[in-house]
């Protein structure tokens, strides 16, 4: 039905997809698996015409096709639920379900559209008021509206890019059964997911991507859970992650208690000792990212108590954190990690007042300091004057860590996704850097949606599900299966709560 050959796509210096070929048969549900940054979403966006490939061809029903826009993709019978929701918050549920649908005529207020929308929602076993603005729905509810939009598209090829990230098991099962019904009617489906359980419960076959390349495609009946994980990782643990070295144990730490963010995080507490890497593990939407952001002072509605080395750190003020040497590494470098200025200005941004004399900046001192810290994070000092946006993902990430150097005494680094969009080589360097910070006595508190990374780098793991802490694992007790169970299907009484 669909055949893609040699699809290639680069973003700047990052090769996101390298000569990936795959095909899909009528009535087939194909799982697409891979780590973060493996190229899954890029591949799906290419098929949907949201981005254009640098090379390669796509055939549908034996005809070569150029898919240059989502409208063209729709014409060819494709429909997609993107990873980031594509609903217009100001529009109603009804309008969002039909938004962009080619079947809708110019005068679109017709009863049959209301009926079909209701039917689609009923199939998902939900009953939203069709005239309610989408902005009043929760993320999970929105995800179901998005699926309803997919259902009314009458598409032959459906793409679902991690559609279940914020949903409960019951809701997920409803979506899966809706997909099975579509399959029975002859639709083919690409199903991108992190949850291996879903692969085995709904998919006929699975394609594994790694670092932008196709690794393998197998029928689900021929492959076990363990094989699949092995295919996804494809490298040994030990090379990647430096072992923790013994450090002076100090009583000092970053202690967070009763952190509360309305609607997102509930009564969360964590202790992150100096010289160790503490990791909050949770799925997208579980609240781990919000915990780090609120500790960084970026969530005004957050309440709770933060104590650093015995002294209170007030909520909310970023400037006060900078003075206590608390640095934040964002999960989205383009949005709130980098300035569109050169490397030197980026690494020194928070410390300018330290380099003034009589109110005027000393550029010589500033450059000296910038060179010094760039060297420490292994960033090419010849590129001090290069715009930060022209660096590779790995170098950009190192730049964010460089900001944490300096100041009086060891500080705190709050990290969301330490290696997102970073190639394998630079990843190993960043992990080494994290250990170096530990040696210097920094507190490292991080989140990651990459489970393998969580297990490889952490000294302590706190699992999180739907805004609440589930369990806490010390180094020797860190175990992939237990953590995975915690963050997807928490069962039994939480050991932390007691």
């Amino acid at each position, binding site marked *: 039905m669909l055949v893609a050959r040699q699809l290639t796509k680069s973003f700047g210096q990052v090769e996101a997809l390298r000569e990936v070929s795959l095909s899909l048969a009528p009535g087939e549900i194909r799982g697409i698996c891979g780590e973060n940054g493996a190229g899954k979403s890029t591949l799906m966006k290419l098929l949907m015409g949201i981005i254009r490939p640098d090379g390669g061809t796509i055939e549908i029903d034996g005809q070569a096709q150029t898919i240059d826009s989502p409208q063209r993709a729709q014409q060819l019978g494709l429909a997609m639920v993107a990873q980031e929701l594509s609903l217009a918050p100001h529009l109603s549920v009804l309008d969002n379900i039909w938004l962009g649908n080619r079947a809708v005529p110019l005068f679109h207020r017709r009863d049959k559209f209301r009926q079909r929308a209701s039917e689609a929602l009923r199939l998902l076993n939900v009953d939203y008021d069709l005239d309610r603005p989408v902005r009043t729905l929760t993320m999970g509810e929105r995800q179901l509206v998005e699926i309803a939009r997919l259902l009314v598209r009458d598409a032959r090829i459906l793409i679902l890019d991690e559609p279940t990230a914020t949903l409960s098991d019951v809701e997920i099962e409803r979506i899966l059964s809706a997909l099975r019904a579509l399959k029975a009617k002859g639709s083919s489906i690409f199903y991108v997911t992190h949850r291996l359980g879903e692969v085995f419960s709904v998919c006929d076959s699975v394609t594994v991507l790694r670092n932008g390349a196709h690794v393998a495609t197998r029928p689900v009946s021929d492959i076990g859970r363990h094989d699949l994980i092995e295919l996804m990782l494809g490298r040994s643990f030990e090379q990647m992650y430096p072992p923790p070295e013994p450090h002076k144990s100090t009583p000092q730490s970053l202690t967070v208690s009763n952190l509360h963010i309305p609607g997102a995080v509930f009564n969360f507490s964590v202790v992150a000792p100096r010289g160790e890497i503490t990791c909050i593990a949770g799925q997208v939407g579980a609240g781990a990212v919000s915990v780090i952001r609120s500790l*960084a*002072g*970026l969530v005004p509605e957050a309440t709770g108590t933060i104590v650093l080395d015995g002294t209170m750190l007030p909520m909310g003020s*970023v*400037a006060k*954190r*900078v003075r206590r040497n608390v640095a*934040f590494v*964002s999960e989205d470098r383009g*949005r*709130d*990690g*980098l*300035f*569109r*200025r050169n490397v030197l*200005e980026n690494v020194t*941004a*928070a410390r*300018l*007042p330290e380099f*003034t004399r009589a*109110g*005027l*900046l000393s*550029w010589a001192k500033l450059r000296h300091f910038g060179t010094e810290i760039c060297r420490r994070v292994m960033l090419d000092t010849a590129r001090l004057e290069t*715009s930060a*946006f*022209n660096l590779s993902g790995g170098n950009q990430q190192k730049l964010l860590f460089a*900001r944490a150097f300096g100041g009086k005494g060891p500080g705190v680094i709050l990290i969301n996704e330490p290696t997102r969009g970073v190639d394998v080589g630079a990843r190993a360097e960043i992990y080494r850097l994290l250990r170096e910070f530990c040696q210097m006595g920094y507190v490292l508190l991080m989140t990651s949606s990459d489970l393998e990374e969580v297990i490889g780098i952490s000294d302590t793991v706190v699992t999180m599900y739907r805004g609440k802490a589930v369990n806490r694992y010390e180094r020797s007790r860190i175990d992939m299966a237990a953590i995975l169970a915690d963050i997807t299907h928490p069962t039994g009484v939480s050991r932390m709560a007691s």
Partner: protein
Amino acid sequence: MTTMRGIVLAALLVWAVLTPSFLSMPSLTALLTTASVIGCMAAGMTFITIGGNVMSFALGATAAASAFLFTALLNASGFAAAFAGSLVFGGLVTGIQGLVIGSLRANPIIISIAANILIYGAASWLTGNETIYAASTGTSQLLGGTIGGVPIEFLIFLAIITLGQTILSFTVFGRNLLLIGSGWTTAEATGLPIARTVFLSYVWAGVFAAISGVLLAIRYNQGNMALAVQYDYDAIAAVLVGGTPIQGGDGSMIRTLVGVLAISVIQVVLLLHGFEEEWRHLVTGLLVLLVVILYSGQRI
């Protein structure tokens, strides 16, 4: 981009010098005095643009009101008080806008439009739309003169540019302003003092606009609210033509100086070539469009 800018400027200069009578005194002097008034306002506008707040529609009104205030104070209590008073006025009126924009992230364009209406409204309330004439001209007339053939107004403009560039290059405030303009959310996550910096950038913009108002008052020996109408547009045109991108986060006072001079030179050359005043508007407009389009290719 830098080389291209250089080539364009060189070509412009050659064209100007080859134009008969360009180098003769009267046209040059006229050029420099006109450039100075717009230039001071453009220097103020540069702060706003660099900080990521696009432009202000209220600087022209602020300059006119400052000219009025300057003349009134000059008649009442002498030059020093008049000068200081109008600068404080400009900084205050514009600073209030900066306060709302910096701390609440109110839309800078709407705020400046509202301020524009309010300033004209308040001025017509307080002055009854009258023109006030300078009674004695002593010190202030001195500023209308020349030193070695160069108008003093232009020297003041150069001083403003130097001051502005020093602020941008060598103070924490200036560097923070560039950083904030280049990434608001990043600045927030890094803990830069956004509200204070944006507020200060507007204060400076207001002070510089007030200086251009004072220059106007000195040149015409009067103050009235019709003096600086539409100067906002000339000022932002100069900033953009000089090469400061409207997205903010980059730019300099030197570029604004170049922009002001380039537009003025073109204007004089066009006049000397027999094109009437009206062509200046068209050429300026096209130039701004061209610069904006050229910059699209080099989004960093």
